[in-house]
């Protein structure tokens, strides 16, 4: 029997980006907040320091910061006709664990979705006709506009000390920035991150073809910076140890170095780590979430934490699983298309290329995952899809490889994989290659969804969440189109050799592709077609709010973190300004 703890005002389930944002904003409003985190605590001064943080084997290969699959994993299949099998160790995507969550090991590409993305279904119908969207494509408009979210995008830019160049300042197009972005109320707090040689070559080639290159926006401080919380960030050191690793320079933004320092000294906040939430308590009669049950992983003891306000701040899979287990909202039924929980699971449809330049000599190990140049000419509705047979798109990125020696090397296809010839090719090409990526959207399809697995269980005996996903014809066509355009730019860079990496027909759970999973608890204007309203408040429990990319109705051609954190600030504002004054549904169905 779980020990019942004293009531608190609010409980956070997960202490990554959104848990930290909500805990900070709610304590500022005077609430007593408990933050529950299944993993360990991590602080930059203790955990992200030399020399141990420079251990590629530990962090990049052995996935030190990622979720422990032995405790809890997900099952996967390509189609509903197949049997899902457990992901025994993560591959295609890497959810994080511990304070900071996936927001420690991210590449920190810091994007906003375009105004058209927020009303994608309406936009496509208006532009291409009401019959343009096929029946199986279940994309939906967002229940809020870009303009409404903009102040919160701006707020998160400043929390992170984001670096970049505005392309649209209050409606005025600025040369050198991204001309396709929505109007910004302010420029980035920091000037763009420095670019490496191949990125500049890419930008020049893209420009010669009539495109609009700009420096990648990153949540990495390009100069020493103090954020609005009063916390100092350091200047990026271009160390190359970035993806999958904590930032030694205290420059890449994470909840740990931008918000947690304030929360740690906040008497109204209580952090409990190694506290694994197994159950969301729900009173169906009153339509209220009453708290959560968690296991203290250090003792095995079970506790009930009652709370007036419950905020799900976990990753996509855990958020969706919590609702399905609690019986909140109608589970999605693929056969009928009815129900919403688990619906519109989407991924990120990335495809890339590599180019080799015999006459160059670069320090490919310098940089970071986000140091590079982009074009956004082929994203979302930034280009005309008439006659193309697909919708969606993505930005193009060219970075210096930021290539650590184990995972970052590259040799042309056809080179032996071992032996002296391989070694000679490795030495030759290690300083002479560049990487390219297209960050493709995934437009929701009725065949792709999440539900509870009928066979496999976690260590607590709970059914695992089951993911049914495959790339759709629409997204494959989109990706091939993007790669065709990318290839033209690469050719204009005049490489000795290049190779394109199209996506395989079937989505596969290995190797690594992207940790951009979205959907399952999507937001919308109507409870029949969404789980949460425009303020991320559950339709079926007005004191339950759900954060993160699980609320995205579909995934657009950008990294999701900038948008999901802006949404967290937007939701926090609605809670503190509206909900606390008059608790109840913020939108009437």
């Amino acid at each position, binding site marked *: 029997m779980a020990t019942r703890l004293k009531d608190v005002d609010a409980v956070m389930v997960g202490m990554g980006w959104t848990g930290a944002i909500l805990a900070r904003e709610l304590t500022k409003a005077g609430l007593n907040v408990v933050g529950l985190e299944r993993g360990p605590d991590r602080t930059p001064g203790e955990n992200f320091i030399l020399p141990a943080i420079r251990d*590629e084997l530990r962090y990049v290969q052995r996935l030190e910061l990622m979720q422990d699959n032995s405790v809890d994993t997900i099952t996967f299949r390509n189609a509903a006709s197949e049997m899902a099998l457990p*992901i025994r*160790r993560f591959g295609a995507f890497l959810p994080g664990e511990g304070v900071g969550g996936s927001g420690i090991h991210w590449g920190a590409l810091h994007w906003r979705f375009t105004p058209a993305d927020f009303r994608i279904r309406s936009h496509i119908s208006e532009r291409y006709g009401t019959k343009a969207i096929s029946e199986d494509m279940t994309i939906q408009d967002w229940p809020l506009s870009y303009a409404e979210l903009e102040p919160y995008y701006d707020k998160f830019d400043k929390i992170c000390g984001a670096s970049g160049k505005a392309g649209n300042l209050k409606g005025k197009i600025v040369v050198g920035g991204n001309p396709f972005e929505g109007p910004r109320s302010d420029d980035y707090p920091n000037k763009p991150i420095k670019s490496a*040689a191949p990125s500049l070559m890419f930008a020049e080639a893209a420009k010669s073809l009539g495109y609009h290159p700009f420096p990648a926006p990153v949540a990495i401080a390009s100069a020493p910076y103090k954020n609005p919380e009063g916390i100092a960030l350091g200047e990026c*050191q271009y160390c190359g140890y970035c993806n999958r690793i904590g930032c030694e320079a205290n420059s890449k933004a994470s909840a740990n170095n931008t918000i947690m320092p304030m929360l740690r000294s906040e008497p109204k906040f209580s952090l409990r780590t190694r506290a694994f939430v197994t159950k969301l308590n729900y009173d169906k009669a009153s339509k209220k979430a009453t708290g959560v049950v968690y296991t203290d992983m250090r003792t095995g003891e079970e506790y009930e934490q009652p709370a007036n306000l419950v905020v799900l701040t976990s990753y996509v899979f855990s958020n969706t699983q919590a609702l399905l287990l609690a019986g909140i909202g109608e589970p999605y039924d693929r056969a009928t298309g009815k129900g919403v929980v688990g619906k519109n699971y989407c991924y990120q449809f990335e495809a890339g290329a590599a180019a080799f330049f015999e006459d160059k*000599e670069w320090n490919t190990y310098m940089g970071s995952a986000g140091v590079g140049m982009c074009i956004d000419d082929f994203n979302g509705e930034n280009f005309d899809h008439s006659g193309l047979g697909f919708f969606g798109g993505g930005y193009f990125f060219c970075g210096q490889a930021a290539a*650590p020696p*184990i995972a970052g090397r590259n040799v042309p296809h056809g080179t032996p994989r071992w032996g002296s010839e391989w070694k000679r090719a490795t030495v030759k090409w290690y300083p002479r290659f560049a990487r390219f990526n297209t960050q493709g959207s995934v437009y929701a399809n009725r065949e792709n969804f999440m539900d509870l697995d009928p*066979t496999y269980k976690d260590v607590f005996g709970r059914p695992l969440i089951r993911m049914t996903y495959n790339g759709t014809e629409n997204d494959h066509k989109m990706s091939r189109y993007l790669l065709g355009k990318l290839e033209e730019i690469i050719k204009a860079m005049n490489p000795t050799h290049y190779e394109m990496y199209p996506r395989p027909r079937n989505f596969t759970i290995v190797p690594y592709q992207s940790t951009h999973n979205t959907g399952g608890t999507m937001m919308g204007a109507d409870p029949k077609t969404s789980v949460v309203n425009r303020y991320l408040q559950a339709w079926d429990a007005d004191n339950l709010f759900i954060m993160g990319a699980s609320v995205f109705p579909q995934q657009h051609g950008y990294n999701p973190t900038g948008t999901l954190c802006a949404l967290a600030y937007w939701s926090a504002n609605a809670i503190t300004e509206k909900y606390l004054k008059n608790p109840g549904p913020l939108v009437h169905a």
Partner: protein
Amino acid sequence: MADNIIPRRRFLVGAGLASTAVAAGLASEVPAPAQAETVAAPPPPHAAAEPEPLLMLTATEAAFITAVVDTLIPADELSPSGSDCGIVTFIDRQLASDWGGGAKMYRSGPFHKGKPEQGYQLALTPRQFFQTGIAEANAWSQKTYGKELDRLSPPDRVAALKAMEEGKAEFVSLSSRAFFNSLLSITMEGFFSDPAHGGNRNCVSWKMLGFPGLPATYAQKFEAYRDKRYVAPPRSMVDFS
């Protein structure tokens, strides 16, 4: 130089477990032509065959791993052999580690083969997978060549590993291709990871690549060295400890 082609003996000597009788027995099997081939390699520039205690590999397993890493990473003008770089020690430590024991790995059944898209679905931990793979590779080698893999001549070893790489070697239970890929992957990890883990002795692979290692603070160098190599003697976690 005969040591280069008597992996099991060399390993035994290196590991401080030398048995004169075994070593002598192996030495008599040395094929002369192969010896001539390997003599072509110049003395490894950073050879450091320091004895290291083995935590989990048996003598037979260590001999197999030594033969494999010396074939995948042969001694040549660019680096010493895989075992001289410490990769056997690295693999032994990795397989003995939490990771080798299946930490952070979902291990509940039922076990189904599944589609390749569904990834690794065996009940085996990495340690068990390598133990099984080594036994099956040696059994296949015995059947095909009449000898275990580490006793094959260098050209036969190359051919045997290629057969495994292409999935043409028929193992009893495992896919020889999957096993080869795991061998290749852990060998590369040993060759390129920080020397603190036992491989990449004296930062040999980092010197080979021109990778400076730690501390990796390039804010003042990133633009200055945009189009030219930044050269610095590599330093590892060991140098900062």
